[in-house]
């Protein structure tokens, strides 16, 4: 069975393709959105999802969030007494999602379609694939998030030809894709994006604004108080999407303080972020040669696109209102499920083909002599230009710099600048050369970019016929297969809470957080109901646990000021 997974910065989702179409699988708490947060509780057991998210303000040193931003780097996070890489943290989230599927359908999923931001680089994609491998999944295909979203919208079903723009503003990444569909072909024309721009950055702006208003120095806050404030303002941000003005009591170390913010004020504070949103849109339009009136539809995807300022920005840019799904944060996952169905050759998809593009230009470093015989070193020679339809394979012929050169170092880069110094280094390849003059010693370099967006480099010395292949896995940000096996074994030793306890754990953590945030009567009331709930848990009788849980949950919902911490 193939599952579709949206592994997001703030939330992750999993789903299946069934006879009724794409279906998302709820987790133990009955929510389809599982927070991408991993933590360790007092007993050293691993918490994943809602429980870890609730624990975040209380124990920021034992909880990690937004680790997707470090995918493809060697950064390790301390979690209790262990140091975990972003791949392992993602694997823990994936395992929790897989457990949900197992409970729901009774089948162990072993293959998956995983969505990644379109603007993810080679290293980030490989890290995502490794994370799935650590979780025991074989990745059938990595799909770009905007492409998945377009598929979920059923935009391919529109009659005739249509061209549309998908903007995916998720928790941590921003993607822009321009797609066209005709005769059952879904073609991506251009992708652009910003891997460090998402809803989290908007929360940061809100935190800064609040601190400036209340005249509190950011350094004066303890990590714990900061995490609590951030969690509260995260909810304020969501409320601002519905209300023009929000009045909130912010938790601080001494006493909670009242703060009022209006939506227009928030928008002004976010001007720089909005400016950053514009750049990738402009580039995608430019690259595909699309004029604004060529577009039939502009689609907003991703949880952060709920913010009215985002749709206003798009409206200003294009002079018309964009389209948005009722659940913008589920769209990508639904698309991944649809692709899983496509992969399994479901009847509904027999007539649909999708083609995608590579988001970055890929090439090698060269030395270039201009017409004045000046030598320019460190120039970038592109082999695969950005927005080339993938799979793509390109060959170029180079020659050594000097006569009788013994070794050629081929350095592979990704980026858009004509100088390699401004581009991202991917890996290098050393080729022994035969003893020949440079003009008699051509080297053919082949770049192959597969359908998952993974790059393979081959160099071929024509004179000797030797061929060498670049294993970009040598990148320090990536794990080797050996390491993956080791991490897989290490992960098995982690103690994870059983799935049926997750709902209770999340509620306990949430109650503990609210207990800290409140004072006086509210605090006493929480304490009383918490004790009752704990006592009910001790009895291990569902008949007693259920009313106690409802009792506590109602109070917490009331105190949080909304039905659920996040809109559905």
């Amino acid at each position, binding site marked *: 069975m193939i599952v579709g997974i949206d592994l997001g910065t703030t939330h992750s989702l999993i789903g299946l393709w069934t006879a009724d179409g794409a279906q998302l699988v709820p987790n133990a708490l009955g929510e389809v959105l599982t927070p991408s947060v991993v933590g360790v509780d007092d007993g050293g057991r691993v918490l994943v999802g809602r429980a870890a998210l609730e624990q975040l303000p209380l124990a920021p040193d034992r909880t990690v969030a937004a680790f997707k931003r470090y995918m493809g780097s060697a950064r390790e996070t301390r979690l209790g007494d262990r140091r975990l890489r972003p791949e392992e943290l993602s694997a823990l989230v994936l395992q929790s999602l897989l457990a949900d599927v197992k409970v729901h359908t009774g089948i162990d999923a072993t293959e998956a379609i995983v969505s990644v931001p379109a603007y993810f680089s080679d290293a980030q994609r490989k890290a995502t694939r490794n994370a799935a491998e650590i979780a025991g999944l074989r990745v059938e*295909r990595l799909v770009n998030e905007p492409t998945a979203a377009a598929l979920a919208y059923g935009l391919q079903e529109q009659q005739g*030809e249509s061209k549309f723009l998908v903007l995916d503003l998720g928790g941590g990444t921003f993607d822009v894709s321009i797609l066209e569909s*005709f*005769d*059952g*072909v879904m073609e991506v024309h251009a992708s652009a994006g910003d891997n460090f721009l998402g809803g989290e950055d908007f929360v940061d702006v809100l935190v800064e604004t609040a601190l400036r208003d209340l005249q509190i120095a950011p350094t004066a806050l303890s990590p714990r108080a900061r995490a609590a404030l951030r969690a509260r303002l995260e909810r304020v941000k969501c409320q601002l999407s519905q209300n023009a003005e929000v009045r909130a009591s912010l938790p601080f170390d001494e006493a909670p303080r009242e703060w009022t913010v209006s939506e227009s004020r928030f928008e002004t504070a976010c*001007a*720089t972020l*909005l*400016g950053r949103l*514009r*750049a990738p849109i*402009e*580039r995608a*339009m*430019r*690259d595909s*040669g699309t*004029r*604004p*009136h060529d577009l039939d539809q502009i689609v907003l995807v991703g949880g952060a696109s709920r913010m009215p300022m985002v749709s*206003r*920005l798009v*409206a*200003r*840019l*294009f*002079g*018309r*209102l964009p389209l948005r799904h009722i659940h913008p944060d589920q769209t990508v996952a639904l698309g991944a499920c649809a692709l899983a169905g496509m992969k399994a050759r479901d009847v509904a998809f027999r*007539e649909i*083909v*999708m*083609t*995608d593009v590579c988001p970055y*230009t890929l090439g090698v470093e060269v030395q270039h002599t201009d017409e004045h015989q*000046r030598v*320019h070193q460190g120039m970038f020679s*592109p082999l695969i*230009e*950005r927005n080339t*339809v*993938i*799979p*793509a*394979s390109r060959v170029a012929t180079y020659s050594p710099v*000097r*006569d009788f050169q013994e070794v050629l170092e081929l350095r592979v880069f990704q980026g*858009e*600048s*004509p*100088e390699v110094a401004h581009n991202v280094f991917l890996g290098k390849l050393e080729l022994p050369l035969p003893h020949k003059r440079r003009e008699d010693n051509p080297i053919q370099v082949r770049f192959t970019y*597969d*359908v998952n967006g993974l790059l393979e480099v081959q160099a071929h010395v024509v004179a000797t016929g030797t061929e060498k292949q670049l294993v970009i896995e040598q990148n320090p940000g990536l794990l080797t297969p050996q390491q993956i096996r080791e991490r897989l074994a290490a992960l098995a030793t982690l103690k994870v809470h059983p799935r049926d306890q997750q709902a209770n754990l999340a509620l306990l953590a949430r109650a503990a957080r609210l207990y800290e945030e409140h004072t006086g009567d509210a605090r006493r009331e929480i304490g009383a109901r918490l004790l009752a709930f704990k006592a009910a848990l001790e009895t291990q009788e569902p008949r007693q646990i259920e009313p106690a849980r409802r009792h506590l949950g109602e109070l917490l919902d009331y105190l949080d000021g909304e039905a659920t911490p996040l809109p559905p």
Partner: protein
Amino acid sequence: MNLPWPWQCLQLDQTATPTAVRRRYAELLKLNRPEDNPDGFQQLRRAYEICLAFAREREAQTDARADNEVVAAAQCPETAAAPDVAPAVSEATESGTATAPPVRVPAQTPAGHDATPVDFALPALRPPEVVVDELLAVDADTPHDSDAFARWFAQCPEFASFISRNVVELALLHRITTGARPTLRALQVLGGAFGWRQLGSERHLLQIGVPREHLRAVDTALFHAGAEAQFDWHLATKQQLIPKGDDTIGVEQEIRLLCQLREQRDRLPRFRALLSGQRLVRVNRLLNGWSQHYGDAATQHLFGAANVAYWRSAHPGAPPNLRQSFAGALRAAILGGVVWLGVALFGALALWQSPNGDSSGFAGLMLTLLVIAVPVIVVINGWRLALHGLARLIAITDAAHERWRERVTVWFAPARALPIGIAAGMLLAIVADRVGGAAAPAGLGLVSAAAFGWRSLAPAAMYAAVGWVMGLAFTGASPTEMPWLIAAALPVPALWFADWLARRRLPHERASLRWRRIVGYSFVYGLLAIVFSVVGAAILDDALR
């Protein structure tokens, strides 16, 4: 049927319309899915792209022909020939004046491009010239606030809309082509938003209406603006080009020198500027540093291509040329003149002290010194000259020069030169002692040691000479007396050992350099101090007697 490959692949006629090409592609694509048959898909895709481009070009030509017929019928071909924004840049590059381009300005949202109802008010748009003026003013007013420009740019309504941004961009490009210079920060924001000077930016410039013949001019102007903004930023933030540690000259002096170079970029430096070897080396290091940091093209633009070439050709490390040889010879002549003048004065002093060539006491010491110093200077200079001359003769091409450096010059590095020099020196001293008089072995020994170690040995050799002679004069012993010979030669192997140790123990080049300096110099100066105290004692002893 004999069709070119792409049409064969798609099984189409060459007269197929774009729609037909796309339809056939869609059909074939379902048989050659990218994930199942990557090779087949790539072939299909290439064929499709070629056919589609061809079909579109055909269609465009047909349309153009139809248009021309219509235009001819209306008898006004000029108005339809060029887009109305085209003169903007052409005027700019040719006349060089800042006349307002005759750009049609959309005062409000252009009607008829969009049928979707919009439920908010679009801000009224200003003429592009006004926006550009404001842009430059905002940029110039906030030199210290690094975010102010980005904030302004993010909020400017004219840039926020695809409807007006191209017109404003065109006006801005026109202004930059005619000499306006935004700061580096503004250029980064603008360049990021518009994709200036990225791969494929020509396509974008053509699309917004820059005529093809002016593409190069616009690109060059953008590059120049970038390079100049970089220069201003470099000066304002006081960046250092020459890395700290070895032969650094300090930020202030670097900036002064860079400003001088920039001011004088339009005329070639005078030949006498090359006579200061130190200045020549510094200028070259600065120019190379600039090339390394900001690119060679920026260096050429900022400091004048001819000037950069001039300075580079005069550098001793450059391939041999007339200017460099001439300047080098002149520098050597001046330096040699000074040295020989000093030697002559010293000789005159010695003769004045002892007119009849009396070789005892202090005067005798001076004469002996002179006898040794003259051959040392002659041989060192002769040896260097011979080496350089040989390099010039043999190593004519760059590659040969490099080979020369690899194979010959390494023998003169202290690690190899010192042991060889010492061994040869001792051998010569013994031979000369058998053959000649008192000063001969000393002179020959030092000469050979100095010749082989002329780079770092010079201070050590000079010290050895002084120490040895002083010792002889003090004791009045025979020149071959061993303890003094050993004492004199001692610092040389010690220095060599320190050098070897530094290289072995400290892999980091700069640290090792510092260490070598500290160890080497303290050694030399400490021993020099001992020697001078010995000399003082000798003179005192002589005077008392």
